[in-house]
């Protein structure tokens, strides 16, 4: 085996791929928070999606069922399910998911087609307590994965929406303003706003958005920038959620952050992202999306978040399961005894494998080293031997 093959095989032989470890931990957490996992087919009817959504995913067709699309996300599926069951199930609904979504790359140099996500949706509940539940779960989720230095940045789309609405910019200029805000291009933003027929106060407020990040002082700074009722209402909602979070001992710090202006048409209230120094991308996204369910039936409030499982696994992979494995060795005639022995050991929370190939001693040693077999149980004696000592 040459060096390239050796490196490749060492990279491709994880006993527990990191994505599965992340998903397992999140599933345990979701379950502990009483969220019910929903499984969705990978192939969805194309009629479930708008033309824009279909442009962003892959479609396939067959003569029997017509066209189908690879699911581009989970939230819309949860929302559709909630709308379909109607109000027959008492609200709020707590739903969770884990799996792959598929996106057609938007750039020619992009190679990310499949996105592993795990997330929760709280449907039929509005108000700061519902928002705080999702943010608390998000915080505990990041800690459960082992991201001890992560932080959650929390904002509210109502603030930027109100500022833009009151600024009376044309649609084209508003789009450019948001692009410049999104890339923190303060000099270009200032120059553009100076050339517009808007008050200096409005221009100043739009530029100062980029400073609105930090602790609770951010809310006071933001209030001083505007007297727009909708903007102040958004800040009051954010304040209420932040106050609830501050009164609990969350494992992941919450940073107030009104600098993010993207996704303002999808979210309707709080929005947040999680970051970890080990990843160059957000590891978590979420927020309130009260307008989505109305597209599928009766509108109702909803809030949720998604963990970017593959981003987390790529950059900040948690330790995989290192617990010891027991190997039961037995003469073929002793198969029933081996099964009984393994069952008893598993009942004691051991991980147990059978030596179905009746390894020769040298092969056994290689297997032990490759598969973290710490102990070998030999039948008929039933005597356990440490890995170091061989069999």
């Amino acid at each position: 085996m040459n060096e390239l093959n050796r490196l490749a095989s060492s990279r491709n032989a994880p006993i527990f791929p990191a994505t599965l470890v992340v998903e397992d931990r999140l599933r345990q957490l979701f379950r502990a928070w009483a969220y019910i996992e929903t499984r969705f087919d990978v192939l969805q009817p194309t009629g479930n999606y708008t033309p824009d959504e279909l442009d962003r995913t892959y479609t396939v067709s067959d003569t029997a069922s017509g066209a189908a699309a690879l699911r581009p996300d989970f939230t819309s599926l949860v929302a559709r399910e909630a709308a379909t069951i109607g109000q027959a199930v008492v609200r709020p609904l707590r739903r969770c998911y884990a799996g792959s979504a598929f996106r057609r790359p938007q750039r020619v140099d992009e190679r990310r087609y499949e996105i592993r996500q795990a997330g929760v949706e709280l449907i039929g509940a509005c108000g700061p307590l519902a928002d705080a539940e999702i943010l608390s779960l998000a915080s505990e989720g990041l800690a459960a994965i082992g991201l001890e230095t992560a932080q959650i940045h929390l904002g509210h789309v109502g603030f930027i929406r109100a500022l833009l609405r009151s600024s009376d910019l044309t649609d084209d200029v508003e789009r450019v303003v948001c692009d410049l805000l999104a890339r923190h291009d303060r000099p270009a933003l200032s120059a553009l706003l100076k050339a517009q027929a808007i008050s200096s106060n409005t221009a100043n407020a739009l530029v100062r958005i980029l400073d609105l990040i930090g602790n609770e002082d951010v809310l006071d700074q933001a209030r001083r920038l505007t007297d727009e009722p909708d903007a102040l209402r958004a800040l009051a909602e954010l304040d209420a959620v932040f106050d609830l979070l501050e009164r609990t001992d969350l494992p992941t710090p919450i940073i107030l952050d009104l600098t993010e202006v993207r996704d303002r048409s999808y979210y309707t209230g709080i929005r947040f992202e999680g970051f970890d120094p080990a990843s160059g991308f957000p590891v978590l996204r979420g927020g309130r999306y009260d307008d989505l369910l109305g597209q599928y039936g009766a509108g109702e409030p909803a809030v949720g978040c998604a963990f970017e499982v593959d981003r987390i696994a790529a950059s900040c992979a948690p330790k995989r399961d290192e617990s010891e494995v027991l190997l039961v060795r037995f003469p073929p005639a002793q198969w029933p005894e081996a099964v009984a022995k393994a069952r008893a050991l598993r009942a004691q929370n051991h991980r147990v494998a059978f030596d179905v190939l009746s390894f020769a001693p040298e092969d056994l040693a290689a297997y032990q080293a490759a598969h973290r077999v710490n102990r070998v149980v030999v039948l008929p004696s039933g005597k356990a031997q440490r890995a170091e000592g061989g069999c």
Partner: protein
Amino acid sequence: MAVLRIALSKGRLLDPTLALFATIGIAPAFDPDRRLVFESTDGKYRFLLVKPVDVPTYVEQGAADAGVVGGDVLLETERDVLRPLDLAFGACRLVVAAPIGESANSDGQLHRVATKYPRIAEQFFKTQRIPVETIVLGGSVELAPSTGLADWIVDLVETGRTLHANNLEPIAEIASARAQLIVNRASQKTRRAEIEDLIDRLGRELSC
């Protein structure tokens, strides 16, 4: 505290970039001519020397927290990075150039355009409603018209001397560009104090 990783463009922007960093007290600890990675003398910064076109990739993907790159590269690559500071040097223009004496709309035929910037070129000609065939080259684009490979070129021009030496002249300006400081979106959140300190210091120096 981990070092702040800054991707620098090799080539024409490197010397002015290092000079600017030196003015705010950030000096390389090793000779940048010989190494692709070197740290600042205070050990707080690690510089990565990469091809200009790769700087936005390093920064977008989080292999670098920040970078210095020409505005032309940002226009062409359109990476999802923050652009908080125009560094005011490396000024140049992206132009369409043709053999001297040729008019831009001379014959209405499909023009072949050689360029290192296919995305910018295609976007420009699309907005101008001029049908073109784009030929992507890695360098020495000015040769393309004289060798019959293309009718026009889209390229970066600083003084125009190279164009003139190759019997070319600008017939349209697409954009002007200067060096930019770019920042990874996640680094802006997780290493905000250090990045804002860097932006502030550079900004103060530039406004002097």
